[in-house]
């Protein structure tokens, strides 16, 4: 980790309007949970079971399927991609700092940012909708989102070093691979970060498997998620070590 790189990255990310939009998106999920809470009446086991199912659906379909990939996409691609795009990356790279340190620092900041904007709203929304921790279901989702955010951020950061259209490729991965193909073909789910995250949530919670309906077993999720996280990080380091300024202006 390099403190100067970390501070610069943090100021760059926080200064962007998109962070505000992501905060609003997380806030929207909390608002949905709050509206559900206001519309539920009574108590007892049936109401608790209903609340648990609603919470699981909300956190899966909004938290893990929309908020987590979107936040990680914007954080992961912006942390280094934005500097490459506007040319400021030269000031960072023209210093005696190893490229591996730069990538690892930027990745760490992207992950911290993504976790704050994802896991915190997931935890709050879950807490409100389930009216408690729901036998560990809510913290399980929040913790799983930490791991999922880390894998996504590493992938999207690597995307930004491979292509100048990282945002488009990231969206295609989330919308086509994860949302479309993973629903149609069981084999494609293995490479879905969302499915891996769900498997982590399932393993971390005491809720019955039917509540989360995870499609991957934990071992597969750990192995494939680990390969994606480490592989993407190594790829990003290698790409930055061989980074070339393209284009001839004079």
């Amino acid at each position, binding site marked *: 980790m390099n403190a100067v790189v970390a501070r610069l990255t943090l100021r760059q990310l926080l200064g962007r309007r998109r962070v505000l939009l992501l905060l609003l998106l997380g806030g929207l999920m909390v608002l949905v949970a709050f509206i559900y809470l206001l519309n539920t009446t009574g108590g007892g086991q049936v109401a608790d079971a209903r609340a648990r199912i609603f919470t699981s659906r909300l956190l899966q379909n909004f938290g893990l399927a929309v908020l987590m990939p979107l936040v990680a996409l914007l954080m992961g691609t912006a942390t280094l991609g934005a500097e490459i795009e506007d040319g400021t990356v030269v000031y960072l790279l023209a210093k005696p700092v190893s490229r591996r340190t730069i990538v690892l620092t930027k990745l760490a900041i992207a992950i911290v940012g993504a976790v704050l904007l994802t896991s915190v709203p997931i935890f709050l929304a879950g807490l409100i909708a389930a009216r408690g921790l729901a036998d560990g279901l809510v913290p399980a989702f929040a913790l799983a989102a930490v791991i999922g955010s880390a894998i996504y951020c590493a992938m999207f950061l690597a995307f930004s070093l491979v292509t100048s259209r990282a945002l488009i490729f990231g969206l295609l991965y989330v919308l086509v691979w994860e949302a479309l193909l993973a629903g149609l073909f069981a084999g494609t789910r293995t490479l879905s970060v969302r499915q891996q995250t769900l498997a982590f949530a399932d393993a971390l919670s005491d809720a019955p498997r039917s509540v989360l309906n995870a499609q991957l077993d934990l071992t597969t999720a750990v192995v494939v998620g680990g390969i994606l996280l480490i592989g993407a990080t190594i790829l990003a380091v290698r790409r930055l070590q061989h980074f070339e*300024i393209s284009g001839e202006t004079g």
Partner: protein
Amino acid sequence: MTAESRPAAISVEHVARWYGNVVAINDVSFTLSGGVTGLLGPNGAGKSTLLHMLSGFLRPSTGSVAIEGTATWANPDIYRRIGLVPERESAYTFLSGREFVIASARLQKLPEPEAAAARAIGLVEMESAQDRPIGTYSKGMQQRARVAAALVHDPPILLLDEPFNGMDPRQRLHMMELLRRMGSEGRTILFSSHILEEVGRLAEQVLVIVAGRLAASGDFREIRRLMTDRPHTFTVRSSNDRALAAVLVGQPTIAGVSLDDGLLTVRSNDFGAFSRMVSGLARLAGVSLHELLPTDESLESVFSYLVRR
């Protein structure tokens, strides 16, 4: 290590760089040690490509590029020895000038980053604006902040890509004075420019690059002489082109005269002498001059002439 055995500050040997089928740099070799050198060439000639290779941001397709004997490509350690001012007008606009230079000092792992930043800011005379965000700076001020950041670790080698872009005349003069002083202190300074006058005022040595090739290198005055002594072409309109052509043909500075489709074209080996004598000769021949136009005087054509030599 003796001075003789010490590697050159900058060493480029048979370097080529191509993008697909496009050759950006073609078999360029030179060495530089100490003083200010201008890298002169028209836009698109390959100056930035060469500077990118020197600063380790582009891998040569063939040949070698070294700073003090160390290959530049994929080697971040060279940045202890060089300061780089890129051409692209980019900056961390959310930082103040001082924060930007201090961040550079910290990334260089200097023991007293604040003091080093204050010294570098003083060199470019930016004290009064140092606490304002870079986003509020003029182009010239942004450029000075970039130069301060490049100088903060007191590097022996400075690479600058079109450093005077966006500067007003006073800032330009000051920057030239600063670079001249740093060059006289023994630093190796290489700056690119497409403006002959800029290079002439600052550089002792010049590298002329045209279409990816090193067209000329050496003392600036010698190169300048080659550029001015080349044949110049003029088109002339007068009251009697035929009579004027007849008196011009015998003159020693005239390399050729042609009269095609009513257009008188004259080629001269000496721009100055021809310009001075043509009106006198016309008067002697009883001809009125209407128009005398030098043709093909663009910098590109001057450079092309050097390549053809």
